[in-house]
């Protein structure tokens, strides 16, 4: 029986038809490239130096660009991290060996039927609400029909004329280093659909193989209004969507694994012209920086053509972003509109939501990135701080937990963005993996503020807590680190240091006042760093400048 399902798989484990001879056509097929871990748009752009405007061959481009505006819209596919696929009980784990997470339903065997995983609806509602959309209480699934080897049934279960959510918007703040500013981009629609499998091509190009692990994994397709005007805005839009799905916990939003995929539509027109230019689609954007750079490349390509009177060479087509060459190349020209022959999916009943159900989900939504940023802003944090803290849901949670324990907002932000972030970077840890709890960070901040320990000691304790855990109080007690604030005790130490260094004292009193630092160091050393620096200096000066008795 397995021999039927995996007929040719037996001899060639991951090759469905080893004799399959369909040739690879110019660049039509491409595989997702495994890459490093995802970064946010902000982080990436800080390291990205590639700027179209710096291209040496186009000296006047900057000037020409000012006469044009780009119209950019994005279609984003977000993979939902439900336990099982959209219409069957197969789990999905990225990177599993090919065809190990398949069943009759997601392989499209004769007689198999889809049954909707209700978690997909929950996720779609969450995203729809988070994007300020209007939800369709009465939506349905449709079949989108086309032939391709990664599409087992010959149709994709999707939503056509009644998507689950429509007409929303997303708010975001551009990074300070790119000029900052608040933006609101429109959301046209959000709909549910299933993912396709993957084609793997032999090195020789003589055959292709199909991996159906991904087939049937739930996706949300989010279509934006054409509201973006440059690469940064587009990349930040995608980053905000990633932030949103991570905040909502509906997906991992990882671009390198293809859990978040962006297809960009872009056209240009001279400023003042109301008519849109010819729309070009760009695919294969595996990171936020490639979104940004591909768009900026494409804008300059189109503007150049247009400004040189070659506007007719901008044709409706799909272009591929080539990461290596840092340019877009033609993938396929559109031959009219594809007819997908949509019709309502007869195997699935309509998706009917009640107001109450939606309300329950609405009430369970977490604080969303935009609201969090506005809250942080009101706390008095700078936009740089706000963006850093709200960027990653886990960092934000850590920060929120710390201030909930009474920690000073600005100090907590400084510690997290400073020493803690540096430690995480060095040790390659996430904030969930460090041993310092928000409770202890709050305690540490409070101890320094109260003068129980010095800032210097605080730092030492911090690194100890980060690496080994434990409590601030425990370490202070264990190592006897309480700051000495008793003037008599400090005076004693000062006296001893002055007594032990008669030569230096003589030099000081002879006018070499620079030696004050030396004495202060000696006293601090004697106190094992615990002496309150202010008191120490005050007493030391008094003693140094006192008439010798």
């Amino acid at each position, binding site marked *: 029986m397995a021999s039927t399902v995996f007929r040719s798989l037996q001899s060639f484990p991951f090759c469905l*038809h080893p004799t399959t001879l369909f040739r690879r056509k110019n660049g039509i097929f491409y595989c997702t490239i495994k890459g490093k871990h995802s970064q946010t748009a902000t982080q990436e752009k800080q390291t990205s130096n590639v700027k179209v405007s710096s291209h040496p061959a186009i000296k006047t481009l900057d000037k020409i660009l000012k006469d044009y505006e780009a119209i950019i819209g994005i279609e984003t596919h977000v993979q939902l991290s439900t336990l099982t696929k959209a219409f069957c009980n197969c789990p999905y784990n990225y990177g599993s060996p090919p065809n190990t997470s398949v069943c009759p339903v997601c392989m499209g*065997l*004769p007689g198999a*039927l889809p049954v*909707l995983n209700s978690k997909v609806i929950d996720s779609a509602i969450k995203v729809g609400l988070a994007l300020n959309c209007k939800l369709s209480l009465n939506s349905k699934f449709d079949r989108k*029909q086309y032939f391709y080897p990664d599409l087992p049934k010959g149709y994709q279960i999707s939503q056509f004329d009644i998507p689950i959510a429509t007409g929303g918007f997303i708010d975001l703040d551009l990074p300070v280093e790119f000029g900052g500013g608040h933006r609101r981009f429109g959301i046209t629609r959000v709909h549910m659909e299933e993912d396709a499998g993957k084609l793997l091509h032999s090195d020789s190009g003589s055959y292709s193989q199909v991996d159906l692990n991904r087939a049937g994994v739930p996706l949300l397709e989010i279509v934006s209004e054409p509201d973006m005007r440059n690469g940064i805005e587009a990349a930040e839009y995608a980053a905000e969507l990633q932030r949103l799905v991570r905040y909502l916990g509906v997906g991992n939003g990882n671009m390198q694994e293809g859990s978040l995929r962006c297809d960009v539509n872009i056209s240009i027109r001279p400023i003042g012209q109301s008519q849109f230019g010819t729309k070009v689609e760009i695919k294969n954007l595996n990171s936020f920086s490639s979104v940004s750079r591909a768009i900026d490349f494409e804008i300059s390509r189109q503007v150049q053509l247009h400004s040189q009177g070659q506007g007719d060479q901008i044709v409706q087509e799909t272009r591929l972003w080539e990461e290596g060459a840092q340019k877009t190349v033609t993938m396929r020209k559109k031959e009219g509109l594809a007819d997908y022959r949509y019709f309502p999916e007869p195997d699935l009943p309509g998706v009917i939501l009640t107001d109450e159900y939606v309300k329950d989900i609405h009430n369970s939504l977490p604080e969303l990135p935009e609201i969090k940023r506005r809250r942080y802003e009101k706390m008095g944090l700078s936009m740089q701080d706000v963006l850093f803290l709200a960027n990653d849901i886990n960092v934000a949670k850590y920060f929120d937990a710390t201030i909930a324990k009474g920690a000073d907002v600005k100090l907590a932000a400084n510690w997290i963005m400073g020493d803690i972030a540096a430690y995480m970077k060095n040790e390659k840890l996430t904030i969930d993996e460090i041993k310092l709890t928000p409770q202890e960070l709050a305690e540490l901040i409070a101890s320094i503020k109260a003068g129980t320990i010095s800032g210097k000691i605080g730092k030492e304790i911090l690194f100890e807590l980060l690496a080994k855990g434990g409590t601030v109080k425990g370490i202070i007690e264990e190592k006897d680190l309480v700051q000495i604030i008793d003037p008599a005790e400090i005076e004693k130490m000062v006296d001893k240091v002055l007594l032990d260094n008669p030569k230096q004292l003589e030099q000081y009193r002879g006018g070499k006042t620079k030696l004050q630092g030396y004495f202060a160091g000696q006293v601090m050393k004697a106190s094992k760093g615990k002496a309150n620096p202010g008191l120490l200096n005050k007493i030391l000066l008094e003693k140094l400048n006192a008439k010798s008795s």
Partner: protein
Amino acid sequence: MLSSLQPPRTLSRFPSKPIYLFRKTSLKPLSSQPITNSTLTDQSQSQTHSQILSIRHSLLCGQLTATQLVESFLTRLRQTEPHLRSFLHVSDTVLRQANELDEKIKRNEEVGPLAGVLVGVKDNICTAGMPSTGGSRILEGYQPPFDATAVRKIKELGGIVVGKTNLDEFGMGSTTEGSAFQVTANPWDVSRVPGGSSGGSAAAVSARQCVVSLGSDTGGSVRQPASFCGVVGLKPTYGRVSRFGLMAYASSLDVIGCFGSSVEDAGILLQAISGHDKLDATSSKQEVPDFTSQFISLNLLESKPLKGLRIGLIRETLDDGVDSGVNSAIRGAASHLEELGCSVSEVSLPSFSLGLPAYYILASSESSSNLSRYDGVRYGNQVTADELNALYGDSRAKGFGHEVKMRILMGTYALSAGYYDAYYKRAQQVRTIIQKSFKAALDEHDILISPAAPSAAYKIGEKKNDPLAMYAGDIMTVNVNLAGLPALVLPCGFVDGGSAGLPVGLQMIGAPFDEEKLLKVGHVFEQTLQNCRFVPPIITDDVAS
């Protein structure tokens, strides 16, 4: 004597209410009823008994072993099959399963209510480890890794799948001539078609090659062959039986249905396969009543057993174009129902004639999509090609038959941009109108009746080159699928033809999920029908010569 026939073992699920008496007779392989010979009823109406219950009694009383029983069927199957060609595949494990059952009975273990019952399964219904081709070249040799839910349930209750029955490719046709592999003959006259698309299942039950069988009904594919072959055919309400494992033709219309040589057998089989299935989102959560509890045996019937029942004879089904013999058989059946106490009146369904075009648009549209998966990439026949489009095109061109290609083309056309509104959308609107008109008629009547087909079985080849004539033959049945209603077809008379006449089927249409009423009425009807014996000549004649 009665007391000695109490079943010695517990019955699990189906009550054995009717008490039949059995003579200890040696088996005559070619007799129409090898197992049951009732001493209570007239031989002339002996076809009204449940073979399933008889088998159960014989096995549990020790009158017959499962092996003997199965051998008698297999012998008949071997003798009749060269003339009928109703099976595409016959299981080679039937005897072994019978043997296991005998061992179980010997050990006094509880056996399921379908124990020892040989079931034919239409070849578009998946059976694990057994070929399931849908009658198509493109799936030649394909063996599914799973059982359809209906098949799984039958097996769980002890039923034995005897084999896979022939059909029009993927259920598309009304004659079974559309099979990629063979043409099945009608047991009443082997020069005639058995109907379709479930022709193999109907012929197999008619010729007693198996006890009951599963078919599928998208536009009449159970009911019309039941009528042509003189057996009982039951099309359940859409959603009553899980479609999981049924190769989809038109998903919104497809249902798995039952064939039996008696209403009771069809009811028992329906009982076995009904119910919600979490693998089919369109299967209903409606409670499944005990379909067999309402059966009243003949000797207990009152003089007017169906008193008060309102029957509506659908006027449009007896218009021109309906064979006069069929017409009079149906009118005879209507009088018979009146004699049983029903009030029969004519009812008009003005939208009736719209059903056929709407059906062919919707069914073709859905089929064009459902058959996309047969692309030669993962399973089934794949041609060698050096380019992707050629791989698809050639695999499908070689794998699909003429009728299937025609329907895919029609459906693709109807769903294309610019045509969708004029065809698919309009057909859906017609469907809604039809549903409403049936609802109105069923508010006024308990059951609607009509012929199951405009004519009795016609000659093989007669309509092969005239698809429109073949499609027109579906006029009696397609409306019921569009409305999703249950319908029972049972033999009610004969017209001239063949050596012994050709059977005519009466269609009874009920309200959604009211199969119970159809079965009850059908059971009374068949038991009280005089002078009709629906046993085809192929098993009463000497076919071995």
